[in-house]
C-alpha cells in the first residue's frame, strides 16, 4: 500500500468537507493510505504573505519540517491555496539556503529543514503518481454522457516556475482524469480565469461578476457540471450561484463538483456517501445525464480548401 503524507488544511474540516471525505474514499480504492501531519498548523493563507516575510515562510515551513519526520517522500495537499503557500515556500527555501537558515530559527524547536519532502496538490498526485490509466481501471460505473467543464482556477498550475505542473494557461490534467471516468470534458476556455477568490467576503460583487463569466462560459461549452480541485473555487461557483443568477437575471443551474466526488461516483460508491446535500446547486439534474447516449455528432473539422490547388491534381 502506497503512503502519502496528508495536509488537509482548514477548509477540509469545514467548507470543503465533501472534498476531504470523498478524497479518502477514492484513495482507499486506489490503495493509498493517508498519514496526517501530526500537529499541523495554518498555511498562512492570504494574510501572512502580505504581512511579514518571516511569517509567510515560517508557517508553511513548520508543516514541512513536521512532514519530514514521517517516512513518506510526498505530501499531498487538498486545498489549492495551502498547496500554493507550501510549494512557494519549498521552492524558495530550496533555492536559497540562507533564507532557509534564517527562517528555520523561528521554527527551530521542531527541527531543521532538510527539503526532503515533495509537495503536490491532490490533483497533481492523482494525475502524476496514480495516472488516468490506473484510475480508469478502477471505474465500475462510468460517467458516460456527463459533460463537464474542468475549472482549475489560478493557483494549481501557476506560476509555472513554482508549480512545474501542467500548463499555466490551458491545463488538461483534470480533463484527462474526468475522461478516464467516462465523462466528456468540454472545450472550456475559462479554465484558469480568476473566480474572485477571497473577495467573496469583502467585495461580493467582484466575485459575482468574475464567477458569473466562468459559469456562463461553462454553460456555453455545453457542460452539465463544473469540476474543481479548489475549495474556494467551489464555494464561489456553487454558493454564490443563486446570487449571480439574481444579479445577472439568468439561470445556470450548473452544479460544481470536486473531482474526487466524481471519482468516487465512478468507482461505485453510493451517492449517499458523497455529501451531495452539502451543495447549494442541486446535483441531480446534471447526474441524470449519466448513461444517456447522445447521437454521435459529426466531426466538423474540414480543412481549409485551397481553391486553386484542387483543380490541378487528379
Amino acid at each position: 500500500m502506497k503512503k502519502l503524507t496528508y495536509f488537509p488544511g482548514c477548509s477540509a474540516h469545514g467548507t470543503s468537507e465533501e472534498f476531504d471525505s470523498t478524497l479518502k474514499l477514492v484513495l482507499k480504492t486506489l490503495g493509498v493510505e493517508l498519514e496526517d501531519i501530526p500537529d499541523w498548523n495554518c498555511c498562512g493563507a492570504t494574510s501572512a504573505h502580505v504581512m511579514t516575510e518571516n511569517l509567510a515562510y515560517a508557517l508553511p515551513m513548520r508543516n514541512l519540517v513536521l512532514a519530514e519526520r514521517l517516512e513518506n517522500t510526498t505530501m499531498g495537499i487538498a486545498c489549492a491555496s495551502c498547496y500554493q503557500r507550501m510549494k512557494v515556500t519549498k521552492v524558495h527555501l530550496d533555492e536559497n539556503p540562507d533564507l532557509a537558515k534564517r527562517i528555520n530559527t523561528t521554527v527551530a524547536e521542531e527541527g531543521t529543514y532538510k527539503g526532503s519532502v515533495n509537495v503536490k496538490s491532490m490533483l497533481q498526485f492523482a494525475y502524476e503518481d496514480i495516472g488516468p490509466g490506473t484510475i480508469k481501471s478502477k471505474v465500475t460505473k462510468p460517467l458516460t454522457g456527463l459533460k463537464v467543464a474542468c475549472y482549475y482556477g489560478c493557483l494549481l498550475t501557476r506560476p509555472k516556475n513554482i508549480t512545474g505542473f501542467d500548463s499555466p494557461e490551458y491545463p488538461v490534467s483534470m480533463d484527462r482524469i474526468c475522461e478516464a471516468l467516462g465523462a466528456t470534458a468540454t472545450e472550456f476556455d475559462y479554465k484558469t480565469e480568476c473566480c474572485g477568490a477571497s473577495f467573496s467576503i469583502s467585495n461580493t460583487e467582484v466575485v459575482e461578476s468574475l464567477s458569473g463569466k466562468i459559469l456562463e462560459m461553462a454553460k456555453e461549452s455545453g457542460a452539465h457540471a463544473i469540476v474543481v480541485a479548489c475549495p474556494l473555487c467551489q464555494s464561489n461557483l456553487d454558493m454564490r450561484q443563486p446570487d449571480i443568477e439574481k444579479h445577472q437575471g439568468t439561470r445556470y443551474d450548473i452544479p460544481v463538483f470536486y473531482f474526487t466526488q466524481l471519482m468516487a461516483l465512478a468507482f461505485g460508491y453510493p451517492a449517499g456517501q458523497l455529501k451531495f446535500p452539502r451543495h447549494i446547486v442541486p446535483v441531480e439534474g446534471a447526474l441524470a445525464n449519466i448513461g444517456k447516449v447522445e447521437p454521435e455528432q459529426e466531426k466538423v473539422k474540414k480543412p481549409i480548401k485551397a481553391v486553386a490547388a484542387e483543380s490541378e491534381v487528379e
Partner: protein
Amino acid sequence: MARVGVFVCFCGANIADYVDVPQVVAEVKRIKEVKYAIEYKYMCSDPGQGMIRDAIVQHRLTSVVVAACSPRMHEKTFRKALSDAGMNPYLLEVANIREHSSWVHQKDKKAATEKAMDLCRMAVAKSIANEQLHEISVPVTKRALVIGGGIAGIQAALDIADARIPVVLVEKSPSIGGKMAQLDETFPTLDCSQCILTPKMVDVASHPYIELIPYAEVLELEGFVGNYKAKIKKKASYVNFKTCTGCGACWQKCPVKVPNEYNMGIDKRKAIYTPFPQAVPNKPVIDAEHCTMLLKGKCGICAKFCEKGAIDYTMKDEIIEREIGAVVVATGYDLWDPKPYEEYGVGRFRDIITSLEFERMVSANGPTNGVPVRPSDGKVPKNVVFIKCIGSRDEAKGIEYCSKICCMYTTKHTILLHHKVHDSHSYVFYMDIRAAGKGYEEFVKKAQVDTAATYLRGRVSKIYKKGDKLMVRGEDAQIGQVVEVEADLVVLASAVTAPKDNPELARLLGISYDKYGYMSEAHPKLRPVETAKAGIFLAGCTQAPKDIPDTVSQASACAAKVCGLFSGDTMKKDPMISTVSNEYCSGCLNCVKVCPYGAIVTDEVPMGFGSKELRTVAKINEGVCQGCGSCVAVCRSMAISLAGFTDPQIINEIVSI
C-alpha cells in the same frame, strides 16, 4: 638609444572624465626613453594624427605609444599615421586606457589614473623592443561563395558577378527566392513582391559569372581569406536537371501529397515538386522523406510519365569542392513559433494564424487565390484582429529584441485585407508603432485613414471561443480599460528569429554568433557587414532582423567589400604571425594540436652535423596563421616566436610595472 613618443587621448570625455590625463602625461615623461609626451582631445582626428606625424619627424622618434581606446578600434588608423611620417607602422604600441581603465573604473578616478599609467609604462617598455615588420603578400582566388539564395544572397551574387567576379551561390532549398518569394506586396510602396523579385532570380540563373547550386549545403570551409576551399553537398534531387524540361508531368501524376512549405502548410504539394511555379531553377526535386518509390520501392509513376527519362531513383548526394576567396553569409531568418502563447489558444484554435500564413492567403499565387479565409470553415473573415509583438519584446515567452518589420507588414496586411475584403474591418493591438524608415510613417498614417482600422494600444491577455467567433480580450491602455473584440480571424505577428542552423554554420565557417543565433558583425557601427574572420561577410537577416531595403543595401555593401578584397592579384596580410626556429624545434608537435586554424604542418629537415638523416619539425603556413599565439604558449623548447609579441617585448612589459 630608444626615443619614444607618447600620445595620450582624452577621447572627449570618455577617458578624461575618469582618468587624469595630464597626470598620466607628466608621469610618462619621467621615463628616460620617453622624449616626447602630449595629450589631445581626439588623437584619432586629423589634427591628432598630425601631432603624431610631426613629432615623429621633429623628435626623431624610434617608436610611438598611443594611449587611447582599444587597438581593435584605431590601431590601423595610428599605424597609418606612422607610415605617413616614414616610420615602420609596427613600431606603434596602443595602450588601451579606455576599455581597460576609464570605462571599467568609473567610480575610482585615482585608481583608473594609476592603471592608465601602468598601461602606458608597459606599452612604452614593449615598444622599445618592437621590430620593423613588413606586410606579407598572399595570392587571391577571385571567386566568391554566397550562402543562401533569398533576396540578400541574390543581390550580393548579382552585384559581385556584375563586376565580373565569379560567384558560387549555394541554396539549401530547390529554388532561390527565399522568404521574399512568399510575400504578396511589399511596404511601403505595395510593389508586387514577385514582380520585383522574379526577374532578379532569372538574372541569377542566366548570369555568366554565377554558378547556381540549388538544393545544396556547405559542409566545410578551410583555408584563409583569399584562399578558402569549400566543400559543398549537393543533395540528391533524383532528377537529371540537364535533361529535365520542367514540363510538370511528373508532379501532376505523383500520388503522394505533402504539406506545402511554400504556402505555410495551408495546401499540399506532391512528393516530386517545384516549390512554386516561378521557381528558379524551374526543375523539380523528389522529396526523399515522402516518396514511396524511394521509401518502399513501389510507385515509379513519375519516371513512367517523364518523356525525357530524367528521373533517376539511384541518384546519390554528391560532394563537390570549390576554391574561393571570400564568403557572403545570407541565410535569412525563421519565424518564431507562437506556441508558448497558450492563453491565446495557439494550436487549439484553427482561426489563429501567423502573419506569413496570412501573407500566403492574400497572395495572388497563394493557396486561396488571394482571398483570406478562416481555416476552420473556409469562410471569408469580416473582423480580423492583428496582434503585434508576438514573441518580440517579450522576455517572458519570447525574445527581448524588436523584430523591426512587424509594425510595417501588419500595416500592409490591414491594407491588403481592406483591398481583398471590402466590408472587412481590421483591429490592431500594438505596443508601439515603429515606423522609422523612408516613407514608412507616411505609409502607416495613410493606411490608418484609408482602411479605418481600429488601433488599440495594449497587449492581448486572452483569446477564447464563443460560438464560431474568437473573443479577443486585451487592454486599451489609452482609455485604461479592458476591451473585447469579436474576431473571425486572428493574425499573430510572430517574431523574426535566427535560422536554427546558424550556430552550426557559424562553427563550420569559424565566425561567431550572438545569444539569439544571429551572426556577429565585426563592429556594430563601423564594420556592420564584416565578420571578425577576414573574407567572410554578412547580408540580411542572418545578422539581425531587417526589412527588404536594408537587406538589399547590406547585400550590395557585401559585394563592394568582396570586390575591394579582390581588387589586386595579391592581398596584404598582417605580418604578426608565428615562426618556428628549426634549430630549437624538437618536433614534439604540441603546437599542431593547439592551433585553432590548422596553420601548422610538419616538415623534414636534416639532422645537422653532416648527417644525412632527416628529422621532423613544425612549419607554419604564413597565409593561414592568424597570430593568436597558442603555439608559442605550448612550445616547450621556446622554438616558436610570434612577431610583434616576442619574448623581449613581453618581458619588457612585465619588468616595467
